[in-house]
């Protein structure tokens, strides 16, 4: 999706990153094989999941003010469904003002 957004809307600056759950470092190597997107590892100090009140497979879409534009959960709206895929892409574009 990152590549698609970049190719289809090069006028918009959209970046997607991953935040791995605390204590799940052992799975990072396999994750690296699947993505070239940045991956950060949450820990007891950062507490990103807690502070953002995130749940597993949430995608937080932030606008240019670092404000939450939308939260899209991939368990509820799996990207296997093309409608969900397009909906998430559209959220990114809308958040970017496109």
């Amino acid at each position, binding site marked *: 999706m990152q590549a698609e957004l970049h190719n289809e809307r090069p006028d918009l600056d959209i970046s997607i990153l991953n935040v791995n759950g605390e204590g799940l470092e052992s799975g990072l190597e396999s994750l690296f094989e699947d993505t070239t997107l940045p991956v950060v590892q949450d820990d007891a100090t*950062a507490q990103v999941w807690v502070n953002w009140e995130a749940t597993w497979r949430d995608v937080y879409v932030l606008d240019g003010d670092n404000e939450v534009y939308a939260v899209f959960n991939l368990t509820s709206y799996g990207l296997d469904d093309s409608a969900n895929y397009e909906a998430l892409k559209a959220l990114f574009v809308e958040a970017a003002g496109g």
Partner: protein
Amino acid sequence: MLDTGRSAVLHALVLAACMTVPAPASVDEPAWSGDVRPGDTATDTAETGGGDTGADTAETGGDTGVDSSDSGLPDTADTGAVDTADTGGDTGFAFTIVPDFALEDLNPGSVRYGQVVSPRDYLEQTSGWYFIHAT
């Protein structure tokens, strides 16, 4: 003598009329002030902030605690307008600045590998943050 009697009767009627006018207001006021206002104010404020569930719960608790002094008058001020406006569509996170953090990008295949990543790096941009369980 007759005039004096009429005058006295009229006087009494006027006095009685004057005394009965304020009575309904004084009865109503305790019913409103004790029952509705504090709870509604708190609920409205909380709901504006996006805490729908919390606001509704607080309202229920507040009303129960105060209604024991209810005079039995119709509680018309408590219309339920606040509750019915709660459609469930308020996500509570809309347009909220996310807390900052600073964590290193660990992915060797990423263009930001080894750099410290913060959401604030993406101000003036749009960013997506996928909360994943790497397995």
